[in-house]
């Protein structure tokens, strides 16, 4: 379990991470989302102690990462894929990391197989493609059989087969009871893997929600109704919490009532319907809408009490 409390990072007068609080729970895949430059990588670097927070704290299993006697068994992380000396072979790289924790050679071979690197294990990493580099980074993250797996943009540079592999791998890790955290700037990709979403923009928390909830809210775009009796249906649906707009004589856009309610009302009063369609906003569009606010927020820093989503 990762717990960030009021986590803050400032470089000079630039605040990269701003009083960020969230949890990454075991048994779940938590998607850590935000546009480029939102502070995702900086947050992840603070989690494993590469950067020191300016304020607040972040703990891993109850204490700061550096205070753990065997940190690789707590958190396995992939930050930038090229966190490897290009002159070393994949095996030598993993072995060097394994030595620090007394992890046996057998485990190194295991993660190499797991990552599908068997054929290039003896090759120097400098010759690796971006995808192979990602696989090596994931192998290194799994080396310590950690309770928490934290990956920064793990599907970058992977081919479709590799993306599917990562998706299944992370699902499996979460199902085993591990906490999985992955960052991404792609909502659609993340929604396929994640259970939970932590969305940030300009270093601030924008949303801390489940994927289902986010999807449900994203679909709150109203219901399109096409009927020959639009005037009458409009009157029947009228209520304080309902807003209805119309773009043509036969068409209504209803919000405040879901499709089911509208269908029942129409049936009760014998209003024929040609079409009854919930207007889903795509997840990506909802995500962009959410993070656009963050950008606007940044341009008006005096507006301190505005709470995003």
């Amino acid at each position, binding site marked *: 379990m990762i717990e960030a409390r009021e986590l803050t990072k400032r470089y000079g007068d630039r605040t990269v991470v701003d009083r960020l609080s969230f949890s990454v729970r*075991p048994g779940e895949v938590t998607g850590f989302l935000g546009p480029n430059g939102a502070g995702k990588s900086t947050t992840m*670097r603070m989690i*494993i*102690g*590469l*950067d*020191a927070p300016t304020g607040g704290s972040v703990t891993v299993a109850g204490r700061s*990462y*550096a205070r*753990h*006697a*065997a*940190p*690789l*068994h707590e*958190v396995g*992380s992939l*930050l*930038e894929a*090229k*966190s*490897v*000396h*290009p*002159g*070393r*072979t994949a095996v*030598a*790289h993993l*072995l*060097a*990391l394994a*030595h*620090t*924790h*007394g*992890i*046996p050679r057998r485990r190194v071979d295991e993660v190499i*197989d*797991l*990552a*599908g690197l068997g054929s290039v294990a003896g090759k120097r990493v400098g010759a690796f493609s971006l995808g192979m580099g990602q696989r090596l980074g994931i192998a*290194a993250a*799994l080396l310590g*059989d950690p*309770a928490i797996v934290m990956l920064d943009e793990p599907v970058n540079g992977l081919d479709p*087969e590799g993306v*599917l*592999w990562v998706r*299944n*791998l992370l699902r*499996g*890790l979460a199902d*085993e*009871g*591990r906490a999985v955290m992955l960052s991404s700037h792609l909502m659609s990709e993340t929604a396929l893997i994640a259970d939970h979403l932590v969305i940030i923009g300009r270093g601030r928390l924008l949303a801390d929600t489940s994927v289902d909830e986010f999807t449900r809210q994203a679909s709150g775009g109203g219901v399109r109704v096409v009927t020959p009796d639009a005037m009458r249906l409009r009157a029947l649906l009228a209520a304080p919490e309902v807003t209805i707009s119309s773009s043509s004589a036969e068409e209504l856009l209803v919000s405040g009532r879901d499709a089911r309610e509208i269908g029942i009302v129409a049936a009760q009063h014998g209003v024929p319907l040609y079409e009854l369609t919930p207007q889903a906003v795509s997840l990506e569009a909802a995500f962009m809408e959410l993070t656009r606010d963050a950008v606007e927020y940044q341009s008006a820093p005096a507006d301190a009490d505005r709470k995003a989503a």
Partner: protein
Amino acid sequence: MTTTTALRRPSAAPAPTRQKVTGVRVLRSEWAKFWSLRSSWITLGVGVFLLVLFGAIASYTYSPDAVAPSGPPGPGASGGDSDAVSLALTGVTFASLAVGVLGVLLSAGEYSTGMIRSTLAAVPRRLPVLWSKAAVIGPVALLLSTVGALAAFLLGAPGLDGEAISLSAGDDGVLRSLVGAGVYLGLVAVFGVALGALLRSSAGAIAALVGVLLVLPGLASLLPDAWYDTVSPYFPGNAGSAAYALHESADALSPGAGLAVFAGWVALTLAGAALRLVRTDA
């Protein structure tokens, strides 16, 4: 692909071996890291090769009539009169650059490649990494340089046969000087590690290394004479070369004092590197 079957082990059951990070394990990791890079072998090989080659050549080409010593510029080679040991150690300057650069690559190289992130994620307390790097390269460079210095002397000895300055390994101070050169080069390697960790840039640290060891003594000669005579023996390069001089010259420290002063500089730089490693974001 067959690898989609995640890990075999549920997290509830602890892995059979779950061991702590210890100083010895970090040392073992750094040892493995050092030898798993081709550049380590090459740089180390070049250093020892230059040490032996220049020493032997200087001994064979020695002629008592020549006025100036055949050595390279820099500390150590400037000493008016040559002896068998100073000729054998002609290559120390070149070797010091090689092992110093090796030290720099060991530490600063991790920053330029990004390896440092992996290293510090595994050892988030950080300092053991720096100590281990120094503890790996120092003794390795010391041992190989000492062997190289001995080889240079023994290979060069036939070339000086019959000359007035000829010495044998058993003569007074000869072994001490040769071993002193080895210790000096071991310390230079650690100096490189410290500079690399302090500056986090290979180019910057190599420049600083060359500047401190080779350029600084020359620059200092611009100082007023009285100051120069007082201060210059304590410069890292000058103190270091005093450590392996056969004959104590009047304007230099004794071998023991020279070694101590140079070790002090290295320790100081290492302390600075440690402070930066702990204090600043990786």
